[in-house]
């Protein structure tokens, strides 16, 4: 078995174990036999309902969202050859957040639970379109700067929505949503988000070979037959679909996309294509772990998932910056 396959199987095993734990853990602790009975002999008893209606969709969402974030982080870091790149960088996350905030602000969410994810996805696509039309086709640095500008714009609009919120309750709802959470998510959310996340991930996986060629820089990648404009468009659309859908069901969750690729990269020889699958799995592991932790740590109200990942992710960010200071020319 190659090192790559070994790493992938190890992370996959950890992910399966964590998925099991996430079915056990929570306000009501279940024992494994209750969980198994709940899974395979669905009924109307409480344990079965908790497992099938509350914890299983939550675990599935955590895995999907974590994988989307980890994979798009790995692809964006490969595309920009910048170890600090992540989905937030291109304005995707904040675009999705803005879409969702608009839905909450105008009270559209009351009409149908599908409105928030739908507008979130639309926001992500709009942000990516703007980023790409501003910075596409003019090199990777232009793309990063365009992403920063779009992020700044969407953040300003989110602040505006908070500022002008019609009632304190609406402002509170927006704030809570922005903090990110997987609590009280149902199969409806899974059904809404999964197709987009999976389609986006498929687009991102296809980019692997071209990302490898980009290790040699843009001129050599192009000379090897890589169509850079198409590659940028594909990764942006893939990220918008995967992260847009993920953000619109789970809220803004930072740092998973940044951290996951770094955790696996040294084990696969740094080759961008080989980072993709392990990074997606590592993202799922990280988010599932964080979600379990939010259920177990109590300071009064449940800690929000996005807050937790940011608190843990920021020191890692500091460490990355310090390390870069030492190594980059």
């Amino acid at each position, binding site marked *: 078995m190659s090192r790559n396959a070994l790493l992938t199987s190890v992370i996959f095993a950890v992910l399966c174990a964590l998925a099991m734990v996430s079915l056990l853990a929570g306000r009501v602790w279940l024992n494994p036999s209750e969980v198994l009975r709940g899974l395979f002999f669905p009924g109307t008893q409480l344990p079965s309902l908790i497992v099938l209606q509350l914890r299983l969709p939550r675990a599935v969402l955590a895995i999907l969202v974590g994988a989307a974030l980890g994979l798009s982080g790995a692809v964006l870091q490969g595309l920009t050859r910048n170890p600090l790149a992540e989905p937030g960088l291109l304005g995707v996350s904040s675009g999705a957040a803005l879409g969702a905030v608009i839905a909450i602000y105008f009270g559209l969410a009351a009409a149908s639970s599908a409105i928030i994810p739908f507008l979130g996805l639309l926001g992500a696509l709009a942000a990516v379109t703007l980023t790409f039309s501003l910075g596409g086709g003019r090199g990777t640095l232009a793309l990063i700067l365009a992403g920063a500008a779009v992020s700044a714009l969407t953040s300003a609009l989110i602040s505006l929505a908070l500022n002008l919120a019609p009632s304190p309750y609406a402002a509170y709802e927006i704030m809570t949503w922005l903090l990110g959470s997987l609590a009280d998510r149902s199969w409806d959310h899974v059904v809404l988000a999964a197709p987009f996340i999976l389609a986006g991930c498929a687009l991102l996986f296809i980019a*692997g*070979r071209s990302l490898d060629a*980009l*290790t040699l820089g843009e001129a*050599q990648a192009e*000379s*090897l*037959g890589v169509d850079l404009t198409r590659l940028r468009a594909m990764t942006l659309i893939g990220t918008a679909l995967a992260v847009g859908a993920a953000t619109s069901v789970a809220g803004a969750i930072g740092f998973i996309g940044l951290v996951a690729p770094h955790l696996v990269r040294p084990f696969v020889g740094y080759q961008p294509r080989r980072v993709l699958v392990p990074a997606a799995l590592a993202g799922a592991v990280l988010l599932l772990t964080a979600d379990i932790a939010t259920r177990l740590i109590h300071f009064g109200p449940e800690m929000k998932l996005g807050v937790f990942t940011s608190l843990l992710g920021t020191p890692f960010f500091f460490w990355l910056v310090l390390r870069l200071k030492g190594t980059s020319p």
Partner: protein
Amino acid sequence: MTTLEALRVSVKRGGRAILDDVSLRAEGGSFVAVIGPNGAGKSTLLMTLAGLMRSDSGSITINDRPLTAFSSLELARTRSYLPQNPRCEWPIPVASLVALGLTPTLPLFGDLPEAHRRRVAEVLAAFDLLDRSGQAATTLSGGELTRAMLARALVGDPDILIVDEPVAGLDPRHTLDTVRRLAELAKSGKLVIAAVHDLTLAARYATRILALNHGRVAADGPPDRMLDTDLLRSVFQVEARIGGVAGGAFVDYLAPTGERS
């Protein structure tokens, strides 16, 4: 035999002609050294010949087929291009770096097929890199990295090799080694086009020298005719002395033209 032909090629950027009416016909087996002062359009010419930059007028053909008729993958299999100071952005092993040269022949997913792996080992051996194959490419010395990049460019066995200043920043030993490798490749039937700043080296190893100045061809011919003090004065604006005899000639720069010496 491979023929690369550029016919009255012009490239304009920002209203200025970077290449102006450049024509060139070169065949497999030759090593064309492109010389010229900074800003003469050498890099633009090489990128245009490689099909990486659109020309505004004129045509470029490989074996009488216009470059525009090639798909990017076909072109990638026919010619290799190395930019100035090529860099490796991730610390991948040298063998993986070299294998990237096979990208245009690989399927979308999966690892290197066995035949490809043998080819990579073969090229690593030819470029004296076998003992470095597992080392991170970012830790190579300048000379080793140049060899690794040349190996990367040749692993796909292209007919045409276009290299922009392959010996910039190399010590004399690695400079000689690199230029001799290019000359050997040309002898084996490939067409090698390289931008070179060292006229003595170009004269000794190239089969032909093309001098560019202000985007135009200032002179084009076999090396022994090109080492000429009048030509050096008009193209590089330097006073120079040519020593030695044909085949072993060398250039000694004396002073910038127009300066009292």
